[in-house]
């Protein structure tokens, strides 16, 4: 008998347990289900689960400690015996007042709690796995050399320079250009849509701008690679003598800016809408024009929220991978020329962890240190942004 067959058998036997438990409960109430504390089905579930759960646990333990594809007769008998004993104990003690519903609901609630704990487990998994490997990395490579090194030259034969600063510079440079594109456009779009646009215009424009956020980043990456990169090279960089590279900080920054427009505009739009109408009415009543009201009343009132939105967009830009992989290039450089190819933390995580990797070499492990730095950086931005936005929301609620 194979494992799937055993599981199927267990399910069938549990179903029998369900009907036994149900029948027993109705019999205990003298045939009148109304006199039971719990509905008959709860008794049924209770019997079925007291069969299935211990048996399944036994199978799982067995499979973990002594894995075998065939299920022996001894194993079959003991697993089934355990399950049936459990069910029998449950069925035999069933009476009119047995709290079967409470039992089932407590179990269900435990399952619900378990499911919501997965979020914490994920965070822990991220932090622990990266901390562990980062520890390994720093035992082989001096941390001051990593954080303050200005050259990035990995060499799998050993003796590499793994300086973090060129990567940080590339990341910040690309993100800054992206924000310079996204913040004015996003903010003005949000202002226009919340203060000026007719409901019809809003109904068309808002979903279209949000579509920008729904497009996968690989699409932007390809757009940067085949359209924007060559365009900038042939029309701007080359004539100005600033470089001959299609992939550059400017390419990646501009395209990324387009991608994060909706992150700025959506959140700012919500926040501007949350500013109480009375503030606007007051300002208009003393003779201010609409733009004066917006600039001098609405925006200051919404400023903390807008700052939060920009911080969230920043964290999105720093963590973005595909656009920079395809648009920014792979050369780690500390340069001011935006038309030169530079690289970012995320690009290097990808390049150090794809292909043949050796998880004892510092050249591979450095990716975990980069990942942890990226995680901490974005987490800090997110938390600050969330605190600001939350505080602000409460102010007007």
């Amino acid at each position, binding site marked *: 008998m194979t494992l799937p067959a055993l599981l199927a058998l267990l399910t069938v036997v549990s179903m029998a347990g369900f009907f036994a438990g149900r029948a027993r409960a109705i019999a205990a109430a003298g045939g009148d289900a109304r006199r039971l504390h719990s509905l008959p089905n709860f008794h049924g579930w209770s019997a079925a689960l007291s069969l299935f759960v211990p048996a399944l646990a036994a199978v799982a333990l067995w499979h973990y400690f002594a894995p075998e594809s065939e299920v022996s007769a001894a194993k079959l008998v003991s697993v089934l015996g355990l399950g049936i004993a459990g069910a029998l104990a449950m069925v035999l003690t069933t009476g009119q007042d047995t709290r079967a519903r409470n039992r089932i609901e407590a179990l269900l609630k435990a399952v619900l709690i378990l499911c*919501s704990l997965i979020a914490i487990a994920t965070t822990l998994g991220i932090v622990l796995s990266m901390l562990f490997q980062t520890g390994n990395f720093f035992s082989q490579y001096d941390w001051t050399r990593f954080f303050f090194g200005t050259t990035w030259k990995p060499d799998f034969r050993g003796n590499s320079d793994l300086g973090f600063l060129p990567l940080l510079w590339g990341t910040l440079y690309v993100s800054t250009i992206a924000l310079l594109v996204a913040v004015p456009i996003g903010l003005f779009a949000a202002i226009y849509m919340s203060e000026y646009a007719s409901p019809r215009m809003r109904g068309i424009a808002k979903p279209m701008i949000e579509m920008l956020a729904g497009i996968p980043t690989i699409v932007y990456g390809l757009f940067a690679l085949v359209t924007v990169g060559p365009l900038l090279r042939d029309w701007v960089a080359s004539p100005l003598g600033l470089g001959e590279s299609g992939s550059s900080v400017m390419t990646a920054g501009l395209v990324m800016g387009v991608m994060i427009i909706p992150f700025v505009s959506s959140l700012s739009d919500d926040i501007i809408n949350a500013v109480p109408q009375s503030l606007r009415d007051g300002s208009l009543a003393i003779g201010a024009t609409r733009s004066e009201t917006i600039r001098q009343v609405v925006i200051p009132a919404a400023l903390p929220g807008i700052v939060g939105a920009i911080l969230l967009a920043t964290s999105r830009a720093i963590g973005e991978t595909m656009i920079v992989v395809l648009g920014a290039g792979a050369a780690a450089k500390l340069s001011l020329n935006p038309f030169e190819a530079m690289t970012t933390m995320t690009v290097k995580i990808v390049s150090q962890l794809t292909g043949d990797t050796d998880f004892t070499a510092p050249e591979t492990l450095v990716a975990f240190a980069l990942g942890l730095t990226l995680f901490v950086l974005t987490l800090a931005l997110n938390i600050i942004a969330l605190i600001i936005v939350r505080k602000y929301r409460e102010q007007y609620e």
Partner: protein
Amino acid sequence: MTNTPANPAIKGSLLMPDLRTMARNRAEARFRAYGLAAVLVSMTLLAVLLISIFANGASAFRQTYVTIPVELTEAKLDKSGTRDLAVMKKVTTLGYAKVIAASLEAALKDKGIPVEGLSAKDIAAILSEEAPASVRDRVLADPTLIGQTLEFRLLVGSRVDGYFKGRVTKEEAAKDNKVKPEQLALADALTAAGMMKTSFNWAFITAPDASEKRPEAAGLGVAVIGSAYMMLVVLFLSLPIGVSAAVYLEEFAAKNRFTDIIEVNISNLAAVPSIVFGILGLAVFINFTGLPQSAPIVGGLVLTLMTLPRIIIPARAALKAVPPSIRDAALGVGASKMQSVLHHVLPLAAPGILTGMIIGLAQALGETAPLLLIGMVAFVRDYPGLPLEGLFDPATALPVQIYSWTQRADPAFVERASGAIIVLLAFLLVMNAVAIILRRRFERRW
């Protein structure tokens, strides 16, 4: 006479705006124009993005084929004459290439198409390297074909194909060492003779990836299956887990520190860069648990962890939108808290939850970065098996396939990558449309 005051500082008529008011009104108009410009710029950028992708990729759905009678000579393909598969497999694609080249030449002579300036090798080179392989597969599948002369529809090489799509011109061909202008002229002659045709490219969607040298044969088959398997995993895991977590947090959890930690955690996870989830998958699922690289199951698990917070948040909003009177009524007629949630609140919130789920799935479908780290970039030509075993077979995914194609040198792969994006966007469009329809049809305003 005019009412305009000589000195603008002196108040004039209310009907005539003074200079300062006019300046303020102009500022107002300017400000408004900036806003409108921002909206229009965003919409234009969206349009430019989509148009550029479609312009580059639409041609991937058409492919040039040449149809010629191929004589499957026994002397070349099965010298023993026994039709023994083991013996026949010894004839490689090179052997088939010779047979096809001979047939092509015969067909040209038959139609009276001149071939001046082209060696026999050049003539054969207009065909794809995939062509002999496809003939060989068909013969090995049915050895009785040997000795017959059959019509075969053969793939044409990527340069000649590009010529028909406008990507390659005769001037460029003169400089390109992979194709000669004379070959393109021959292709024109073949088209005029009705032997060469460009038709819809089903193979692009169904065929597996092909090597660097034959972009004309590269397809999305394995990637589509891989993505579908991953979406299955994400759906089966994240729907129950996400809904359970949302129900607990929204309906049962007490307002305390513990609940607060979970909530902050979830909203932070939703904003963690996706590549970090790739590192997690590599460290936990591949290095620690020992699951195979490039397997859809690992990709599915990583995407599940990434999608969960993005499902929990809208699911909670949907639950919150169900008015308390529903819960009160259920409790009032004697339902337990759990019954009121499972029997009444959850079904009423279902459309909202499903909408969030579909949008979460759509995001997961387009995600690339984490999959790069768990080895989905591998070159896979074999279709994965059926689930559940197939979940552990190597596969690629749609977005990752696009990425791998961008990394190849031949410009024909840019067309393939853009075409693949059209397929990806079509899937996303369908999913989002379903979400919108669900919301329109079942959304209730209380």
